[in-house]
Protein backbone atom coordinates (compact mmCIF):
# COMPACT_ATOMS: atom_id res chain seq x y z
CA UNK A 1 0.00 0.00 0.00
CA UNK A 2 1.09 3.58 -0.64
CA UNK A 3 1.15 5.76 2.48
CA UNK A 4 1.91 9.47 2.66
CA UNK A 5 4.11 10.54 5.58
CA UNK A 6 5.35 13.92 6.73
CA UNK A 7 8.96 12.88 7.28
CA UNK A 8 9.56 10.30 4.59
CA UNK A 9 7.26 11.31 1.75
CA UNK A 10 5.29 8.49 0.20
CA UNK A 11 6.14 5.02 1.48
CA UNK A 12 5.30 1.77 -0.24
CA UNK A 13 4.52 -0.63 2.60
CA UNK A 14 3.91 -4.32 1.96
CA UNK A 15 1.10 -5.97 3.95
CA UNK A 16 3.60 -8.16 5.77
CA UNK A 17 5.52 -5.09 6.95
CA UNK A 18 2.55 -3.65 8.84
CA UNK A 19 2.65 -3.89 12.64
CA UNK A 20 -0.74 -3.50 14.30
CA UNK A 21 -1.20 -2.09 17.79
CA UNK A 22 -4.92 -2.85 18.28
CA UNK A 23 -5.21 -0.41 21.20
CA UNK A 24 -2.98 2.17 19.53
CA UNK A 25 -0.24 3.74 21.61
CA UNK A 26 -1.08 5.65 24.76
CA UNK A 27 -2.32 9.09 23.73
CA UNK A 28 -2.38 7.91 20.11
CA UNK A 29 -5.28 5.48 20.36
CA UNK A 30 -6.44 6.06 16.78
CA UNK A 31 -3.01 5.24 15.34
CA UNK A 32 -3.07 1.44 15.20
CA UNK A 33 -1.04 0.56 12.09
CA UNK A 34 2.68 1.20 11.83
CA UNK A 35 5.71 0.34 9.75
CA UNK A 36 9.39 0.45 10.59
CA UNK A 37 11.46 2.91 8.56
CA UNK A 38 15.24 3.31 8.27
CA UNK A 39 16.03 0.05 9.97
CA UNK A 40 19.60 -1.14 10.32
CA UNK A 41 20.10 -4.43 12.10
CA UNK A 42 23.63 -3.53 13.14
CA UNK A 43 22.71 -0.15 14.69
CA UNK A 44 19.38 -0.57 16.41
CA UNK A 45 17.68 2.82 16.17
CA UNK A 46 14.81 3.24 13.72
CA UNK A 47 11.51 4.98 13.10
CA UNK A 48 8.06 3.59 13.82
CA UNK A 49 5.87 5.43 11.33
CA UNK A 50 2.09 5.58 11.73
CA UNK A 51 0.25 4.46 8.62
CA UNK A 52 -2.90 6.22 9.85
CA UNK A 53 -1.62 9.73 10.57
CA UNK A 54 1.19 11.06 8.32
CA UNK A 55 2.91 13.18 10.97
CA UNK A 56 2.99 10.57 13.75
CA UNK A 57 6.30 8.74 14.02
CA UNK A 58 8.43 7.61 16.92
CA UNK A 59 12.12 6.82 17.24
CA UNK A 60 12.62 3.36 18.70
CA UNK A 61 15.56 1.41 19.93
CA UNK A 62 16.36 -2.05 21.14
CA UNK A 63 16.98 -1.46 24.85
CA UNK A 64 19.35 -4.44 25.13
CA UNK A 65 22.08 -2.51 23.35
CA UNK A 66 21.77 0.63 25.48
CA UNK A 67 20.46 -0.43 28.88
CA UNK A 68 21.73 -3.98 29.32
CA UNK A 69 20.36 -4.22 32.86
CA UNK A 70 16.82 -3.55 31.60
CA UNK A 71 14.83 -6.74 32.11
CA UNK A 72 11.16 -5.88 32.49
CA UNK A 73 8.68 -8.53 33.52
CA UNK A 74 5.84 -8.80 31.03
CA UNK A 75 2.65 -10.15 32.64
CA UNK A 76 1.53 -13.46 31.14
CA UNK A 77 -1.91 -12.01 30.40
CA UNK A 78 -0.28 -9.48 28.08
CA UNK A 79 1.83 -12.17 26.42
CA UNK A 80 -1.35 -14.22 25.91
CA UNK A 81 -3.06 -11.23 24.38
CA UNK A 82 -0.28 -10.98 21.80
CA UNK A 83 -0.26 -14.73 21.18
CA UNK A 84 3.15 -15.17 22.82
CA UNK A 85 3.98 -18.25 24.87
CA UNK A 86 6.80 -16.59 26.78
CA UNK A 87 8.63 -13.29 27.03
CA UNK A 88 11.55 -14.82 25.08
CA UNK A 89 9.39 -14.84 21.96
CA UNK A 90 8.61 -11.12 22.25
CA UNK A 91 10.45 -8.26 20.62
CA UNK A 92 10.92 -5.40 23.04
CA UNK A 93 11.40 -1.82 21.89
CA UNK A 94 11.53 1.45 23.77
CA UNK A 95 10.75 4.94 22.50
CA UNK A 96 13.31 7.70 22.46
CA UNK A 97 12.66 11.38 23.04
CA UNK A 98 15.16 13.51 21.11
CA UNK A 99 14.79 17.11 22.27
CA UNK A 100 16.36 20.24 20.77
CA UNK A 101 19.66 19.36 22.46
CA UNK A 102 20.21 15.76 21.34
CA UNK A 103 22.53 15.23 24.32
CA UNK A 104 19.38 15.18 26.42
CA UNK A 105 18.03 12.16 24.58
CA UNK A 106 16.01 9.88 26.86
CA UNK A 107 14.39 6.45 26.61
CA UNK A 108 10.98 5.57 28.01
CA UNK A 109 11.71 2.41 29.99
CA UNK A 110 8.40 2.57 31.88
CA UNK A 111 6.26 2.13 28.76
CA UNK A 112 8.01 -0.30 26.38
CA UNK A 113 6.47 -1.65 23.19
CA UNK A 114 6.08 -5.41 23.16
CA UNK A 115 5.64 -7.01 19.74
CA UNK A 116 4.91 -10.50 18.52
CA UNK A 117 7.28 -10.50 15.53
CA UNK A 118 5.50 -13.38 13.80
CA UNK A 119 1.94 -12.05 14.02
CA UNK A 120 3.18 -8.46 13.77
CA UNK A 121 0.93 -7.33 16.58
CA UNK A 122 1.99 -5.28 19.55
CA UNK A 123 1.01 -3.20 22.54
CA UNK A 124 2.50 -0.56 24.75
CA UNK A 125 2.90 -1.85 28.28
CA UNK A 126 2.88 0.20 31.44
CA UNK A 127 5.22 -1.42 33.93
CA UNK A 128 3.47 -0.43 37.16
CA UNK A 129 5.65 -0.56 40.26
CA UNK A 130 8.72 -1.50 38.24
CA UNK A 131 10.80 1.52 39.22
CA UNK A 132 11.79 2.06 35.57
CA UNK A 133 12.02 5.65 34.39
CA UNK A 134 9.84 7.15 31.66
CA UNK A 135 12.79 9.41 30.80
CA UNK A 136 15.97 7.41 31.26
CA UNK A 137 18.90 9.50 30.15
CA UNK A 138 21.17 7.83 27.61
CA UNK A 139 23.99 10.32 27.19
CA UNK A 140 26.16 11.15 30.18
CA UNK A 141 25.67 14.77 31.27
CA UNK A 142 28.47 17.17 30.45
CA UNK A 143 31.35 17.09 32.95
CA UNK A 144 31.38 19.43 35.94
CA UNK A 145 32.15 23.00 34.99
CA UNK A 146 30.27 22.74 31.72
CA UNK A 147 27.17 24.91 31.46
CA UNK A 148 24.78 21.98 31.81
CA UNK A 149 25.69 19.97 34.88
CA UNK A 150 22.50 19.91 36.90
CA UNK A 151 21.34 16.33 36.34
CA UNK A 152 21.63 14.15 39.41
CA UNK A 153 22.21 10.48 38.89
CA UNK A 154 21.51 10.81 35.20
CA UNK A 155 17.76 10.90 35.71
CA UNK A 156 16.13 14.06 34.41
CA UNK A 157 12.89 15.55 35.58
CA UNK A 158 9.91 14.29 33.62
Amino acid at each position, binding site marked *: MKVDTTRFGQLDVADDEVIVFPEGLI*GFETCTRYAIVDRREDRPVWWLQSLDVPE*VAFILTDPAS*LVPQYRPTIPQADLDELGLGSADEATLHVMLVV*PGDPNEITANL*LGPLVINPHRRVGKQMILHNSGYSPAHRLVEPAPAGAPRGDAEGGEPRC
Partner: protein
Amino acid sequence: MLVLDRRVNQSIMIGNIEVVVTEVRGDHVKIGVQAPRCVPVHRKEIYELIRSQNVRAAESQPVDLEQVRGLLQI
Protein backbone atom coordinates in the same frame (compact mmCIF):
# COMPACT_ATOMS: atom_id res chain seq x y z
CA MET B 1 -19.47 13.72 37.03
CA LEU B 2 -21.71 11.00 38.43
CA VAL B 3 -20.88 10.36 42.09
CA LEU B 4 -22.15 7.20 43.81
CA ASP B 5 -21.99 6.19 47.49
CA ARG B 6 -20.47 2.73 47.95
CA ARG B 7 -19.38 0.65 50.95
CA VAL B 8 -16.58 -1.92 51.11
CA ASN B 9 -17.34 -4.90 48.85
CA GLN B 10 -19.95 -2.95 46.94
CA SER B 11 -19.47 -2.36 43.23
CA ILE B 12 -20.53 -0.29 40.34
CA MET B 13 -20.87 -1.54 36.79
CA ILE B 14 -19.63 0.53 33.85
CA GLY B 15 -20.98 -1.38 30.90
CA ASN B 16 -19.65 -4.88 31.56
CA ILE B 17 -16.78 -3.60 33.72
CA GLU B 18 -17.11 -4.06 37.46
CA VAL B 19 -15.38 -1.65 39.83
CA VAL B 20 -15.43 -2.84 43.47
CA VAL B 21 -14.25 -1.10 46.62
CA THR B 22 -12.22 -3.76 48.43
CA GLU B 23 -10.72 -1.81 51.34
CA VAL B 24 -10.94 1.63 52.89
CA ARG B 25 -8.40 2.86 55.41
CA GLY B 26 -8.39 6.60 56.11
CA ASP B 27 -7.88 8.32 52.78
CA HIS B 28 -6.52 5.12 51.19
CA VAL B 29 -8.95 3.15 49.05
CA LYS B 30 -8.27 -0.17 47.35
CA ILE B 31 -10.28 -0.71 44.20
CA GLY B 32 -10.70 -3.89 42.19
CA VAL B 33 -11.48 -3.74 38.50
CA GLN B 34 -12.95 -6.69 36.63
CA ALA B 35 -12.69 -5.85 32.96
CA PRO B 36 -12.27 -7.73 29.70
CA ARG B 37 -8.62 -8.09 28.75
CA CYS B 38 -9.05 -5.74 25.83
CA VAL B 39 -9.80 -2.87 28.21
CA PRO B 40 -6.57 -1.36 29.50
CA VAL B 41 -6.71 -0.28 33.15
CA HIS B 42 -4.07 2.09 34.47
CA ARG B 43 -3.47 4.44 37.36
CA LYS B 44 -4.22 7.82 35.86
CA GLU B 45 -0.98 9.54 36.90
CA ILE B 46 1.13 6.79 35.30
CA TYR B 47 -1.05 6.82 32.21
CA GLU B 48 -0.59 10.59 31.92
CA LEU B 49 3.17 10.22 32.39
CA ILE B 50 3.43 7.72 29.53
CA ARG B 51 1.05 9.77 27.37
CA SER B 52 3.14 12.90 27.81
CA GLN B 53 6.34 10.97 27.01
CA ASN B 54 4.71 9.56 23.87
CA VAL B 55 3.68 13.06 22.80
CA ARG B 56 7.22 14.31 23.41
CA ALA B 57 8.60 11.33 21.48
CA ALA B 58 6.33 12.13 18.54
CA GLU B 59 7.58 15.72 18.70
CA SER B 60 11.21 14.63 18.56
CA GLN B 61 13.27 16.87 16.36
CA PRO B 62 13.40 15.70 12.74
CA VAL B 63 16.83 14.27 13.32
CA ASP B 64 18.97 12.17 11.08
CA LEU B 65 19.03 8.79 12.79
CA GLU B 66 22.72 8.49 11.97
CA GLN B 67 23.26 11.40 14.34
CA VAL B 68 21.33 9.59 17.07
CA ARG B 69 23.23 6.38 16.42
CA GLY B 70 26.50 8.27 16.63
CA LEU B 71 25.45 9.99 19.83
CA LEU B 72 24.50 6.68 21.42
CA GLN B 73 27.63 5.04 20.07
CA ILE B 74 25.75 2.13 18.57
